[in-house]
């Protein structure tokens, strides 16, 4: 990471003791100077929720993309998600995670671990396909909306004046409209253009809160001595923005991007559930739940699996975001108690 020189030394060896609140004194005691990157990594790994969340997310991603394959690359799972198969075991899941000493037959994956739907499609393959699409949509939204939000916020906060006014009034406007309503209208009109297009459209709607955060950071960074110094030495505006200011807002941006991914997973699911998101023949976790919600009393697994995957993904991402927030926050309480 090259951010080292532009990061303000917030970890002076010994700060003013006792000028902090009762919780304060110990946070000033830091011994070795570490780079921001090292510190962030260290704190992130120590955050138990984030570490577990990160592991879970990686497993889900690997499982979803390797099992049934994607694009033209084949996966290791023997069934596709469109093919209908003869119904085994009444369509119920054949997965058995209970060891032999509890129910006597031991661990087993079976031909259809997540069961089958009414027409015999393998529900594991379907769920994996839904996970792929949902993940793709969420990550595209996370990355794209973060990019838009960061650039808009940076311009707004750095230049101020007219540009700031226009961008902020526009965010006011978008914040007035409950996101689901506008997303439903747009999704309904563009849903047939495919998941990627939907993701791009949704990104255009949800960048506003990050733009405001970045703008706030930039407004305060603009007054910092080292930015003034850079300006006095004749650095160009883009250089100041990208080299001196953006690295200092990177914590805010990364945390927000993570949380946006969690929001996006749920937004896509909600839209697809209402019928304004992903359309058949494509599928997503939200669409699967929507399709099978009435099957709850007869084939409950059709309802459980996609929901479970949404919750695992959203929960993991939220925990990762929390861990990152703690890791980037130099003020965080570092007491072991």
């Amino acid at each position, binding site marked *: 990471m090259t951010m080292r020189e532009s990061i303000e030394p917030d970890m002076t060896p*010994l700060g003013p*003791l*006792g000028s902090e609140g*009762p919780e304060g*004194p*110990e946070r000033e*005691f830091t011994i070795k100077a570490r780079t921001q990157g090292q510190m962030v990594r260290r704190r992130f790994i120590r955050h138990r929720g984030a570490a577990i969340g990160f592991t879970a997310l990686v497993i889900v991603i690997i499982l979803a993309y390797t099992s049934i394959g994607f694009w033209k690359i084949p996966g290791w799972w023997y069934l596709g998600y469109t093919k209908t198969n003869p119904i085994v075991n009444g369509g119920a899941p054949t997965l058995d995670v209970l060891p032999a000493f509890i129910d006597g037959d031991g661990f087993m994956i079976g031909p259809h671990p997540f069961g089958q739907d009414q027409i015999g499609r393998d529900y594991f393959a379907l769920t994996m396909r839904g996970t792929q699409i949902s993940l793709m949509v969420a990550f595209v939204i996370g990355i794209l909306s973060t990019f838009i939000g960061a650039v808009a916020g940076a311009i707004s906060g750095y230049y101020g004046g007219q540009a700031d006014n226009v961008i902020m009034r526009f965010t006011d406007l978008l914040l007035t409209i409950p996101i689901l309503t506008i997303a439903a209208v747009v999704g309904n009109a563009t849903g047939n253009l495919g998941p990627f297009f939907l993701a791009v459209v949704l990104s255009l709607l949800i960048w506003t809160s990050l733009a405001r955060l970045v703008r706030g950071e930039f407004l305060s960074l603009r007054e910092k001595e080292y930015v003034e110094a850079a300006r006095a030495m004749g650095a160009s505006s883009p250089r100041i923005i990208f080299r001196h200011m953006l690295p200092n807002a990177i914590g805010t941006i990364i945390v927000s991007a993570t949380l946006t991914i969690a929001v996006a997973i749920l937004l896509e699911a909600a839209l697809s559930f209402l019928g304004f998101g992903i359309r058949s023949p494509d599928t997503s976790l939200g669409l699967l739940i929507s399709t099978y919600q009435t099957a709850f009393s007869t084939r409950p697994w059709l309802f459980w699996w996609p929901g479970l995957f949404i919750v695992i993904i959203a929960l993991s991402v939220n925990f990762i975001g929390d861990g990152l927030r703690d890791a980037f926050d130099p003020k965080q309480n570092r007491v*072991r*108690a």
Partner: protein
Amino acid sequence: MSEEILSVNDLSVVFPTEDGMVEAVRGVSYSLSERDVLAIVGESGSGKSVAAMALMGLLPKYAQITGDVRYRGEDVLAMSPKRSRALRGQNIAMIFQDPMTAMNPVYTVGDQLAEAYRSHHRVERKVALARAVEMLDRVGIPQAKDRARSYPHEFSGGMRQRAMIAMAIINSPDIIIADEPTTALDVTVQAQILETLIEVKDSVNAAVILITHDLGVVAGMAHRVLVMYAGRGVERADVEDIYRRPRMPYTAGLLGSIPALDSAGGKLHPITGAPPSLINLPPGCPFSTRCPLVTDRCLTEEPELAATDLPHHQVACHNWEKVAETPDPTLLFRTKAVDA
């Protein structure tokens, strides 16, 4: 000699942190008599504020406090929470460094003063408010009656610190702990605030523990001085002795680093280096890394606070005799400053 009201013996405070145990205060001892003014001097991180907060019971629960602190013979550290609460504010009051943040922004100044009074006296709000106005008047706030209805943000920094002093004396305490009371203020206001503090302390017959890093502040006010370094008391003496006959190189260095008016345009003479980390302190004298008189013994054996050639004067230094022999110990650091 007047009666001793507070004695602190071997007070230590340890904070457990992720990086290890922080020994913020390591065996500090002092005593305070009625109407006495004790200055505790040290740079940031020397443990002077933590020591004061420990005896006020204001440190977080995870702080490990040991030692023997007695207020009029009563064991302060072993008190029930209820007794400890009664002690705070009523017997020992505290003034904090930053008057900008020390007052609650959402209540009026008068309310906050009255609250301090009512928490120790069962009186009606009206009575407490009248008392608050009286105190504001006593610390020199003009139109105290109207100003009591103002919010803290409507006060200037100096006024707020006056209000904090008024809050401290509202219950006529025995001891006022003033934690860097002037550090956050404009230089022009500092002297006025100190003057007010001395006046009101006399009017309620309180003793004062003045915590500061500014030896200039100490000279005009204190009777006794305790110099702290890296969580320890390193020199304890009457105020005259500290200025004229320091026995600890660190104290001498502090005196030498005060810019003198007559040497305008001259160099500043700081003590080079920084205090050590309080986690996993190395053996030996904590000041050894910055001391011009360092010897081999300093690196292995930490000196205890012990008597010197002068009465009521203790110092924690193996080489205090060398300091005593130096005609002007404040010059000790000058040579060192050159090679740094």
